[in-house]
């Protein structure tokens, strides 16, 4: 793969603000696990890894007046780390409009949502925080503090979110769509997920002991870390010194269970194997593995099994630095990447604190060890079996690698939807229903043929729709199991999330139901579909409000065009509860538009097996573009030779992912001229070019 260099890095976690403090803590073996202090929770029995700064202190560091604008802890930590990364890279704000910024988070603005939930329901005092709930808003808040970036998107694959943000950034560079990208992740501790993890009974009441035979669970942590990735040529032109190289990466799905890991470690094994293969190195060349190593019985066992499968009895030195930082969940991918970088630069193996006895398991690094490191692997696994691995390389070995690619053409083979238009078939074209109600909820999916009762009982409406549309699209496409499953969702399973949040705020932090928490992560649809279709391949979820679907499509096109996969399922799912709808109306976000629910699954492939509906010939995504930039994007994409479609809000209503329904409808309605499906709101602008199959 191309030479992708890291030229800036920023980090904040329980063991320090910035790289220097982090390095010192690692070398001096100073753990950041402490009694809970900043989070206002009843659960004092669980130690945590909190960033040792209050929100006000972070505002002061950043020059933000907390009274003047809404802020969330997740966004503030993200900004502190982002500032360090941008400053080190030497990028300046005049360059940002050409640079994509990609974040990973799951919590988003939940810290404020749980604090102000009762106000949302009862008065108007905190309405400005309704909008800061979603993951995309968090990314926008962080980016806007520094300037206007070319495009923003947000991965939300639970605890592998930041690692997947790195992968998407690298894919943009490999495709030649960017010379430089800013990638990272951020996550603050909230009562919501502290109680969720508590309900799953996987929190240790003592400081955690990853890989120890007596390990008893994880400690939640928080923090953020960012990396600036750029091509060698771009870095050279700017005259900046690279810090390390992203040598490879892998993303796979365990496709086993929503919260448990498989006994054979299929997902972790595939992710690590792919990372090595993409770099073209042998297992024996890996000098250190920074494991996911949460400290739960299940994770550490599965990860050990996967390491043994890949490395045999030559498992490289490894450790979990979560004993220092706690489990920083969505941010862990980049936090641990920066830790790997520090280890590489200073030639040491980060120690696995508190390890005493491996029992029958593998023994991690447990004594201070100096070692020159060339290749370092960093694992990040998430609920839903979203497993990723990043491989970094010491920078001394200068060599130019150029990928010579003939981008593949991509076809839309099938698409299934459940929307406000009834029924699922083509009838909406001839007899469309024009929505008149403020909120139209979709019908229940016909799921019984696809989902056994024992599985269906835990699924909310959105999950049943996800599986029903996915199975239909897969069957209609005729290309077998999808090699990649990529979902866009603004809010994920908001119905379950709301029930859990409501119980938390009304009944207090006791006796929370694990089933509700389990499906509250945004990646639930992608992972449930993967489990159902036995799809162990690439798996990702984007949660960036109105460009969630477009981001998923962008990712699919990147994977397909460079031939990493031959087919990909792209999904778009959002539900809408009456109560959440009421909040959106109250916050003034719907502006009289008709809201609806959205469920779409489509199969894309690089070959036309005779079923193609159209070609998906390209796309553009921009954040707050100028008029000139909009025009330029349109000209570049189609040179004016296409009809423009601005969506069908009268038919499908609006929700975060209804642009997927716009694409669905445009593909089915198009004649013999290319069509550009355009989406535009106050922040985001996207264009998707569809070409009729006559041209295919």
């Amino acid at each position, binding site marked *: 793969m191309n030479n992708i260099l890291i030229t800036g890095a920023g980090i904040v976690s329980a063991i320090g603000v910035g790289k220097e403090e982090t390095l010192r803590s690692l070398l001096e073996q100073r753990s950041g696990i402490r009694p809970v202090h900043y989070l206002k929770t009843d659960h004092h029995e669980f130690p945590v890894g909190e960033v040792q700064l209050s929100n006000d202190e972070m505002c002061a560091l950043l020059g933000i007046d907390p009274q003047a604008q809404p802020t969330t802890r997740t966004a503030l930590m993200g900004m502190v780390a982002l500032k360090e990364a941008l400053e080190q890279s030497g990028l300046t704000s005049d360059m940002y409009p050409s640079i994509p910024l990609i974040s990973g988070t799951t919590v988003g603005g939940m810290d404020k949502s749980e604090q102000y939930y009762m106000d949302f329901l009862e008065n108007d005092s905190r309405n400005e925080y309704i909008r800061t709930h979603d993951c995309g808003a968090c990314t926008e808040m962080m980016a806007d503090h520094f300037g206007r970036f070319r495009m923003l998107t947000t991965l939300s694959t639970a605890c592998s979110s930041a690692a997947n943000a790195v992968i998407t950034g690298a894919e943009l560079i490999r495709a030649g769509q960017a010379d430089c990208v800013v990638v990272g992740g951020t996550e603050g501790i909230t009562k919501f997920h502290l109680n969720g993890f508590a*309900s*799953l*009974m996987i929190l240790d009441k003592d400081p955690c002991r990853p890989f120890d035979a007596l390990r008893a669970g994880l400690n939640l942590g928080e923090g953020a870390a960012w990396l600036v990735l750029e091509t060698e040529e771009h870095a050279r032109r700017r005259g900046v010194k690279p810090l390390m190289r992203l040598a490879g990466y892998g993303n796979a799905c365990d496709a086993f*269970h*929503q*919260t*448990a890991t498989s006994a054979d470690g299929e997902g972790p094994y595939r992710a690590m194997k792919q990372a090595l293969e993409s770099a073209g190195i042998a297992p024996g060349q890996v000098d250190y593995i920074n494991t996911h190593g949460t400290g739960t019985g299940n994770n550490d066992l599965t990860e050990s099994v996967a390491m043994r499968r890949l490395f045999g009895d030559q498992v490289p030195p490894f450790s979990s630095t979560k004993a220092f930082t706690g489990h920083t969940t969505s941010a862990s991918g980049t936090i641990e990447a920066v830790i790997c970088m520090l280890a590489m630069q200073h030639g040491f193996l980060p120690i696995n604190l508190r390890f005493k006895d491996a029992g029958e398991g593998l023994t991690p690094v447990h004594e201070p060890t100096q070692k020159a490191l060339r290749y370092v692997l960093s694992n990040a696994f998430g609920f839903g079996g979203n497993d990723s691995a990043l491989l970094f390389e010491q920078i001394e070995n200068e060599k130019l690698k150029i990928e010579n690619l003939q981008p593949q053409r991509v076809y839309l083979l099938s698409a299934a939807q459940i929307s406000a238009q009834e029924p699922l078939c083509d009838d909406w074209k001839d007899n469309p229903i024009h929505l008149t109600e403020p909120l139209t909820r979709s019908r229940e999916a016909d799921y019984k043929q696809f989902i056994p*009762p*024992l599985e*269906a*009982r*835990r699924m909310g409406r959105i999950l049943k729709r996800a599986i029903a549309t996915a199975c239909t699209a897969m069957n209609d496409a005729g290309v077998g199991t999808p090699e990649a499953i990529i979902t866009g969702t603004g809010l994920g399973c908001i119905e379950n999330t709301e029930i859990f949040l409501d119980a938390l705020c009304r009944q207090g932090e006791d*006796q*929370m*139901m*694990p*089933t509700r928490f*389990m499906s509250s992560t945004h990646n639930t649809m992608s992972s449930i579909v993967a489990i159902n279709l036995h799809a162990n391949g690439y798996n990702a979820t984007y949660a960036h409000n109105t460009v969630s679907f477009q981001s998923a499509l962008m990712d699919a096109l990147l994977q397909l065009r460079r031939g990493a996969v031959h087919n990909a399922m792209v999904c778009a799912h959002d539900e809408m509860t009456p109560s959440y709808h009421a909040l959106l109306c109250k916050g003034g976000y719907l502006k009289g538009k008709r809201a609806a629910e959205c469920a779409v699954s489509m199969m894309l492939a690089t070959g036309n097996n005779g079923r193609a509906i159209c070609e998906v010939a390209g796309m553009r995504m921009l954040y707050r573009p100028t008029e000139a930039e909009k025009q330029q994007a349109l000209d570049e994409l189609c040179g004016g030779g296409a009809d423009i479609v601005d969506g069908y809000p009268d038919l499908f209503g609006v929700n975060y992912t209804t642009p997927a329904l716009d694409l669905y409808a445009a593909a089915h309605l198009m004649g013999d001229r290319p069509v550009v499906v355009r989406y535009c709101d106050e922040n985001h602008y996207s264009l998707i070019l569809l070409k009729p199959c006559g041209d295919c």
Partner: protein
Amino acid sequence: MEELILQLKKQIIEVLNLEDVHPEDIDENAPLFGNEGLGLDSIDALELIVLMEKNYGIRLQDPNQGKEIFKSVAVMADYISKNRTK
């Protein structure tokens, strides 16, 4: 005990959202977990722990304890009758 067993079956059906299952369908001596019997999994075990605390005031600290207690409805009822605080 009969009464407790019936009550427990109803609570299990409700909490675990067992669609189309009636109390009489559950054999109180059949295993709750694994492929025989109801086929419940680790998340159900956690829900049963919440059920025990909410309805009977029994607090389990270690999910592994559940393995013994949740063997069958009858075993569960026996444990509850000996340990309940409400």
